[in-house]
């Protein structure tokens, strides 16, 4: 049975720079390759509605006649499926998470 097994580890980390950051004064840097949030580029979109049909949570609504692309950020789970299947690559996933959505307001593009 060992005594003071933790002491070595505790002593080492007492003298080492903390692995945590001073958030929010020091914002977290996004990790390359992370599925942060979905970004819509209006110029390429042909309003084919594939993304809205395939969205697993129904967060996207596309109106072809009015040329409107709408997202409900509270429903979106950032799975990236829409970005994967978009034929015109007008949807992309960016690394930054952005500010969190707190209301059911939809974003119209």
């Amino acid at each position, binding site marked *: 049975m060992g005594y003071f097994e933790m002491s070595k580890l*505790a002593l080492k*980390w007492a003298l080492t720079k903390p692995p945590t950051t001073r958030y929010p004064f020091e914002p977290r840097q996004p*990790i390359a390759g*992370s599925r942060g949030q979905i970004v819509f580029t209006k110029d390429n979109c042909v309003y084919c509605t594939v993304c809205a049909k*395939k969205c697993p949570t129904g967060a996207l609504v596309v109106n072809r006649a009015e040329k409107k692309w709408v997202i409900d950020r509270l429903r979106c*789970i950032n*799975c990236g499926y829409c970005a994967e299947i978009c034929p015109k690559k007008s949807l992309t*996933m960016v690394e930054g998470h952005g500010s969190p959505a707190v209301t059911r307001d939809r974003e119209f593009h």
Partner: protein
Amino acid sequence: MARTVIPFGPQHPVLPEPIHLDLVVEDEKVVQALPSIGFIHRGLEKLAETKDYIDFVYVAERICGICSFIHGQTYCQAIETIMNIPVPPRALYLRTVWGEFSRIHSHLLWLGLMADGMGFENLFMHSWRVREKVLNIIEATTGGRVIFGSCKVGGVRRDINADTIKTILKDLDEIEKDLQGITKVFLNDRSVKARLCGIGVLSKQEAWDLGCVGPTLRGSGVAQDMRDQGYAAFKDIPVEPVTRTEGDCYARCAVRCEELFRSVNIIRQAFAKIPEGEIAVKVTGNPTGETITRTEQPRGEVVYHLKANGTKNLQRFRVRTPTFANLPAMLKVLPGCDLADVPMIVLTIDPCISCTER
């Protein structure tokens, strides 16, 4: 001595998820434990009847927040079995790698909670410090921290290139060194042993009879691990189950500590043998048939039963999760223990109530 009923949960400092136990106590000894579950039932199995079978991977992944990847993988394996889809070997290796990363982060989470449950705050912080490194690797390779979202029917969504593999292997060396530091404390420290040794003893026969799975079963001396069935890349990477014979809380903790190192080795072997090639095949048509798929999650064996009738929605989707199989064992060992040992016994089966209730 008069009997008293003490409620344990659904909100309790040691419980990350809600389960309620009515503990009948005589003095400080528990004489009976009466469980009630159902606080977080979400009806995910029913959802399979209205969701497209390809999109349902996202739902399957959300059955559990910790072993999410293996849930998605098991679902995909089940659909691939029904539809006879030849999954590219590279995808199988990548699934194995992510599955093992998932196991490491789950075990580290559990070790942290265990340390926290016994009041060892410092060890809790160190366990989660190491887990953070694993989560960073997962986020960089799959895009998500706990919900990976990288598995799909017919393969995987993302590849890992050679440079990233080199970086991960370098990080793994560092993680292994960290793991040695913290597991040494879990296995040898006097205060940890005082809280775990001889508590909640489950004999080999009892564990087998009650249908335990995973580290709870292996901690009682039964060498059963679904990975030796050879799913994904495990047909090329042999897995020898980690077992202990004591059957107490310490044994279950020791099994998980040793499994961390085994998982690191499996990832190394998988990266050494990973073949080049495609990562996914195109899936067309709808599934027809029925299958049962079994895989090894961090908490034990999970069983998926799928029934499809040729439409885009499944006819029946049923999951038997490891925590559900381990609950009878927990209720078996609780009577006779001290009230102060209840949190340790409950924690050592690694209860995942979201899984259990779905």
